[in-house]
């Protein structure tokens, strides 16, 4: 095939004489740039981790801790305000029913002489509910 022979006959170009010098200059330039980028990344990572440590220290050791009651108060205020706005919750109080076992008391009482105890309500007011 003639065209293949012609392809081989095409003149071969050569690199310019200062090719290597230019290349080495570019290599050193890029090396420096890479180094700068590396330092920048390291400093960025350092700054971020320092900020993280500062945040943790502030939260764990320096900022005052809230007791459970304070926390509950805070939550109540938050949730009631939130739910009033939303109109989802109607009751703001939670009644607590305490189960009391009287059987033990009756057993101990049975040894004592036959006494009738009249239990009557002393306090006239209605039972109060614990508000949260």
């Amino acid at each position, binding site marked *: *095939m*003639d*065209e*293949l022979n*012609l*392809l*081989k*006959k*095409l*003149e*071969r*170009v*050569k*690199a*310019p004489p200062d*090719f*290597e010098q*230019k*290349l*080495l200059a*570019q*290599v050193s330039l*890029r090396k420096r740039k*890479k180094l700068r980028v590396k330092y920048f990344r390291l400093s960025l990572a350092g700054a971020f981790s320092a900020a993280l440590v500062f945040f943790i220290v502030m939260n764990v050791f320096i900022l005052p801790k809230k007791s459970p009651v304070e926390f509950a108060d805070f939550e109540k205020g938050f949730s009631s305000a939130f739910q009033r706005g939303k109109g989802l919750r109607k009751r703001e109080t939670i009644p607590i029913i305490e189960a009391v076992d009287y059987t033990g008391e009756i057993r101990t009482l049975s040894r004592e002489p036959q006494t009738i105890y009249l239990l009557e309500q002393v306090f006239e007011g209605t039972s109060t509910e614990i508000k949260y």
Partner: protein
Amino acid sequence: MDEQELVRQIQEGDEMAFTELVRIYKDRIVNFLCKLTGDYQKAVDLSQETFMRVYFKAHQYKPVAPFSSWIYTIASNLAKTEMKKMRKFSFVSLDDVQNTLPIEAYAKNPSESGMISNLKKALNSLHPRYKIPVILKDIEGFSQEEIAQILKRPLGTIKARINRGRNYLKKELEKTSYKENSFVKKEECQNG
């Protein structure tokens, strides 16, 4: 020194080994990229970038393939990207080739024969898909297996692309020589 040994030294950061490798490959890579892009200055710039990548990505080279395949892969990928950027692709169907070159383009260059000039033009109008395998095979002298390795394509695909590229060049040369002949005959008729 063996090329693999040179690459190993580059991986350790030896600049002398890198300079040696550049000395070995610079002309080949510049020539390859010049034929591919058709622009000498661009070819030099792309060659510089190719060697930079060799230097900075040397740790990625695995000695399972020859170093020449690796460096030609880098060079051809860079050239393809550059050509895409430049939108230099001239999409010519191989089945329906229309020669749009002006007749003055066939005038003989004093430094080279008309045939070679026409071949250069035909090569420049060839789609990179066919151009790269043809250049690697017929100008750089790689085997089809090596080209398949460089371009990361199956061997059958490479064979087909080389064949189509060569057929296209042949058609182009035939057309241009026909046009040249008819142009000369017309001029002779006009001159009497």
